Each structure stands twice: as structure tokens, then as C-alpha cells.
């Protein structure tokens, strides 16, 4: 490990390298901005307004908020043990399933009084967070902890195994097709229309839950003892151990936090998409991972930023190119980022990124 830190940053800093560095950083931003700017201009020319673009961006941001919640889970875990928790998307899916399962228990249904519904949904969300947090901790114990000294690829492989197991749990639970769930919040109801740009209940919900959660999480990690332990463990597990930090507990707590976020995202997704599917986690997981990488994996702010950007890119691609090509665009972005700027938009260079 010590050799790693000594040589953690092999990026050279000649003038040309510095230029290249700047080009890669701002180049990425430029590429990201080029698409909407181009669309804005072409819209202005052809239609004379930006309504479509505005609508795309609103949808993109609300989709992106949910992606961001999932992406935070990836980034937290990666930040501390440099492992892509491949099963994270499935934990998110289980979160949706748990929350939906509890609607009946808590008597939540369409058309019930708003205060009662809010209380019920909060209770369902907390339950989903607890279940998913616990599940994530269990996954860590079963699939990753025994392999902490094995080559790095070993836990990634078990993570994939875990992901498939959880998908099957989903199939056993609710079958293999998508199912529609009651639209509790009347998500498509237009709340505000500004110059043709529609903001509906779903968009507000996604923002209303994501923003406080992200603030809570960042301040928790910045201020609390656990947060400090997490950062110490992330930097150097051995040193952290010497300083009296219980590394195992810290890692477990990180998985707990990540799982809880996935649980919350599961409920929001349920209300926002009004559907449920065993495979929803896989797709969302890949997209959220892309978001985490785009922002700079290991970086909390980056994950949120990446989530919002990927949300917008996805919606723009869907609207302009076609729904069937959205995934291609998102994955193409993933490859481009990995190749040209693996440390992401605001991430620090990691060893992997080298």
C-alpha cells in the first residue's frame, strides 16, 4: 500500500501535460454542454422557442435526482474500499419492492387524505431504508468481506453473482414482468407551467427528497465521528486501524448508509415511475454508476452532479434520437469518460484512473 501512495499520482506536470489536463477537464465540460447548446440553437432556429429543451431538462433533472441517490451509494462504497458494488442497483430494486409491499400494510392507497399519505409514505420509506441498509451490510459480510485480501477482481465477480441472486429474489417476489403501481402522488399532474415548460408533481417530489437527503449525507460525513472514520479508512486503512478506528465497523456503516440511500431512492422511483420491475435495478445501476464515474467516483458532490447530468443527457437522447438509443448514448458517455477522464469532472485522480 505504501508504494501506492508514494506513486499515487503519476500524472506528469509538464506544460504540455498541464494543457492536456485542462483540455481533458474542460473538454469534457465542453462536450457535455455542446449537446444542449446545439439543441437550443437548432430549436430556436426551427421552432423559435426553447420549450422542448426546457421540458427535456426538467424531466432530466428529476430523473437525474433519482439516479443521483443511487449513484451516491456507489460512490460511498467505492470511496472507502475501491469496490464497484455491482449489486447496489439490485438493492435499490429491493427498496422499491419493500416500499410497495408496505403500502398495503400501512393502508396507503390512491385518494387517501394527504397528511395520512405523507405519514404512510415516510414510514414506508424509513422501512425500505432500514431493510436496504441491512441488506447492503449483509451483502458486504457475505460477498466482499471474505475476499478483502484477494485480488481486486474477486469481489467484483461476487458482486455480480449477488446482483443476479437479488434479481431472482425480485422475480420470485413479483414475477418477471413490469407492473404498474397506483399513482399516489398523481405524478403527471402539471403543477406549474412556465413558458410552456411543465413541472409536475413527480419532478417536485424527486427534488424535494433528493436535495435534503444529499445535504444530510454530506454534512453527516463532514461532521460526524463516523464520517471522519470513513474518510480516514478511505485514505489508508492500515493507518486508520493504528489510530484506533474499527475499520470493519466503518466499512459496514458505509454499506449501511449506501443501502439506506438506495432504499429511499427505491420509494421515490416507485412514486415517480409508477411501475415496478425486478430488472429496474440493473439498468438504473449501470446508469447511476456512469453518473458516479462522471462526477468523479468517490466524490459525493460529483455523484449528484453526475446524476443530474446523466439524467439530462438521457432525456435529451431519448427525445432527439429515440428511446431505443438512450442506453447507447449513456454508455458511450461512460466509455468516453473512462478513457479520457477516468477521474471524472470534479474527482481526484485515483490509482485506478492512473
Amino acid at each position: 500500500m505504501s508504494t501506492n501512495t508514494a506513486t499515487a499520482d503519476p500524472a506528469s506536470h509538464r506544460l504540455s501535460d498541464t494543457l492536456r489536463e485542462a483540455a481533458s477537464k474542460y473538454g469534457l465540460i465542453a462536450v457535455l454542454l455542446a449537446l444542449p447548446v446545439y439543441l437550443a440553437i437548432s430549436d430556436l432556429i426551427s421552432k423559435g422557442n426553447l420549450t422542448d429543451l426546457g421540458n427535456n431538462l426538467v424531466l432530466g433533472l428529476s430523473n437525474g435526482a433519482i439516479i443521483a441517490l443511487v449513484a451516491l451509494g456507489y460512490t460511498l462504497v467505492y470511496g472507502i474500499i475501491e469496490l464497484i458494488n455491482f449489486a447496489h442497483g439490485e438493492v435499490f430494486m429491493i427498496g422499491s419492492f419493500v416500499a410497495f409491499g408496505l403500502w398495503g400494510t400501512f393502508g396507503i392507497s390512491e385518494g387517501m387524505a394527504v397528511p395520512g399519505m405523507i405519514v404512510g409514505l415516510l414510514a414506508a420509506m424509513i422501512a425500505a431504508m432500514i431493510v436496504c441498509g441491512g441488506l447492503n451490510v449483509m451483502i458486504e459480510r457475505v460477498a466482499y468481506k471474505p475476499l478483502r485480501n484477494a485480488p481486486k477482481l474477486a469481489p467484483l465477480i461476487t458482486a455480480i453473482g449477488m446482483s443476479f441472486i437479488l434479481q431472482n429474489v425480485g422475480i420470485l417476489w413479483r414475477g418477471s414482468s413490469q407492473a404498474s403501481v397506483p399513482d399516489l402522488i398523481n405524478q403527471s399532474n402539471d403543477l406549474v407551467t412556465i413558458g410552456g415548460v411543465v413541472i409536475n408533481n413527480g419532478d417536485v417530489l424527486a427534488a424535494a427528497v433528493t436535495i435534503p437527503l444529499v445535504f444530510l449525507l454530506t454534512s453527516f460525513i463532514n461532521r460526524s465521528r463516523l464520517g471522519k472514520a470513513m474518510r480516514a479508512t478511505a485514505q489508508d486503512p492500515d493507518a486508520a486501524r493504528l489510530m484506533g478506528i474499527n475499520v470493519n465497523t466503518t466499512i459496514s456503516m458505509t454499506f449501511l448508509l449506501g443501502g439506506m440511500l438506495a432504499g429511499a431512492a427505491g420509494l421515490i422511483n416507485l412514486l415517480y415511475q409508477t411501475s415496478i420491475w425486478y430488472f429496474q435495478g440493473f439498468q438504473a445501476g449501470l446508469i447511476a454508476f456512469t453518473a458516479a464515474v462522471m462526477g468523479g467516483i468517490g466524490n459525493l458532490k460529483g455523484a449528484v452532479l453526475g446524476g443530474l447530468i446523466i439524467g439530462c443527457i438521457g432525456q435529451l437522447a431519448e427525445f432527439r434520437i429515440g428511446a431505443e438509443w438512450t442506453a447507447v448514448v449513456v454508455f458511450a458517455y461512460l466509455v468516453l469518460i473512462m478513457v479520457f477522464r477516468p477521474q471524472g469532472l470534479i474527482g481526484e485522480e485515483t490509482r485506478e484512473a492512473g
Partner: protein
Amino acid sequence: MSNLRGLLKGKNNLVVSLVALGVAAILPLFFDPLSNLTNNFILAAAFVVMALGLNIVVGFAGLLDLGYVAFYAFGAYTIGWFASDHFSSVNGGEGFHIAAGEFASNLPGIHLNFLVIVVVAVIITGIAGMLIGLPTLRLRGDYIAIVTLAFGEIIYRFAVNGDEITFGEGYKLTNGRQAISPIDSIDLPGFAPFDSAFSLRPFYWFCLVLVGIVLLVNFRLRDSRLGRAWIAIREDEVAAASMGVPLVKTKLLAYATGAAFGGISGAFLGSYLTSVNANNFQFGFSIFILAMIILGGLGSIWGVAIGAILLSFINTYFIPEVFNEVPRKIGLEFDLTILNFGIFGFLILLVMVLRPQGILPERRRALELEGVGAGDAIEVRAP
């Protein structure tokens, strides 16, 4: 287990190879020429070819490729394009034929002999392998996994949506989930044309020959300059580079070779299944093949072959035919088949945690997975 490993050394390997292939060759004579078992054996043999290909990339060179299905797709589309009526108005509707069988040579579209197809598939998938490998060269470990996964997904989407990409005289890139079919059957010079409606045995023997060739290639590569370089890169990239191993070229050769095997197998399966359907090129397939090599033992040639046969039979025989009713018998309302991927996932997890070296481990890889070597290498930027 160590006895077993001793059995596969030096001269004994010859005996084992001969006996194994000999037994395999007479196996179908005990079953009906159209029986399910023969079908299962054919699929298993085709998967052995694929798994041995992926083993070069993951097992030898240590590059975790999660998008291997892309090469299955490229191989399958090679035969889809060049041995069907997909490009129906080529040559004014007369078709274009190279040593095509009697039946195929009167059909419109491009029809090349299967042996030509194999060569074309090797070239196409080899190039595809290098192109997909190229962006991963600067990356290591899990990032390679994710980039290859992303590529696999991109290729899948192109396969599914390729019916929207048209060129020339309205030719489609792929036929999406509507499948390109029928594909010409294998028609080798000197043999009667293969016909899966009458006997599956020729397909089986043909695939067995492929398996034999691929096994031979694997053994030879492992004990060659290139094989040592792959293992050196897997063990310690920095040291390997410092010993004169060119990282870029060596890694790309691993990708290309592994991909080529996937392509050969893909072309074979395309012909055997008589259709190329985008449905078959999903992420799960990559994991299916990966599970084979993990089960058998990463890097171990015999292990991987056994893993592939085992998993293929779990998939085509044990789960759907033998144990399918088990959940219902114990009062659960589902068939075991729906848990197929969960079972693979569980196997991967179990093997990785309890016996990471696999069923029949390779000597060196076993050590590595027990925590010897590798690990804390310093970072090097491949130029």
C-alpha cells in the same frame, strides 16, 4: 485434487486428451440423432469454445471482460450477413456465392461456405476485440470490467436496433429481435450437407473438432512466448513492461484471440440455430460464460472446459429437465427455470468465496487467488 492435476501433466495430458476426445466422439452414437441430449452436447461444446476464448482474456491476461457477448454477436452476425438472404438484392438479386452448398447457391443474398465464414468471423471479431480493448488499455481492474460491460451493452443495442440503420439498397444492419433467418446450414466439401432436421450428429462432431483445435491452440499459447507475457502482465504489469513485454500489443493480442474464439463459436451457433436474434446478446450471456471459467478455475484450460460443460448442462438439462419441478414438490409456486440466473449467481458467489481457484485449478492461478503475488503494484501508464 493434486492427483488430478498430476494427471494432466506432460505425457499424461496426451492420454487424457485422447481419451476425453475419443469418448466425446462416440458419445452421440448412444443417443437418437435428434435427441435433446445431443443438442445439449452441441451447445456445451460451443460454450467450451467460447469459455476457452474468454479464458485467454480473463484467465491468462487477467483482464476482466464483462462484454464477451459482443464477440458472440459479431460472430453470429458474420454468418447472418454472409450466409443468408439478408442482403437479398446483392448482385441484382442473383446473390453472391463462394463454395456455397447446393441448396444455398440458388438463393439470393450472400452465401459463403462455412469454412470461409469462420475465417471472416475470426478477422471481424479479432478486429472488434482489439477495438474494444483499445480504450481499456490505460485502465486496470474493475474499470476494464465496466468499460467492456458498457461496450457489450452498446453492441447489444446496436443488434436490437440495427433494423433502423439502413444502407445501400435498403439493407438493414441487423434484423433486431426479428432475427436474420434462416441461416445456411454447414456444408463442408466432401460431406453431405448438415441438416438439423434429420441428424444433429454432424453438428456435434464438427463442433468437437472446433473444441479440439481450440484446446490445442490454448495449450500452445499458454506455453509460448505470448502466454508467458500474458501471465506476466496478469501478475505484475510494471515488472512485465520492465522485462520488455509490450503491454499494448500483448493485451490487444489477448483481446483479439479471445474474441476470435467467441466469433467462431458465434458463427457456429448462428448456423446451428439457423437464426441470429438480437435477444441472445444480452449481458446475462457474458456472465454465463464468465461463470463457466470461474467454476472451472480461472486460467486452467481443462478446468474451464469442464466448467463450461457443467454449466451448460446445468442450464440445458439439470435445471429445466431434472430439478424443474422440485420447488413445486415442496409446495412452492414456481419452476426452477425462472431461477436460472440466480443459480449461476449463487454458484459464482459460492466458488469465489469458498474455492476461488475453481474445480480444477491452474497451479499458478490457485496461488494467486489464495493471496500470493499480484495486488500492490505501482501504477504505470501504458503509453
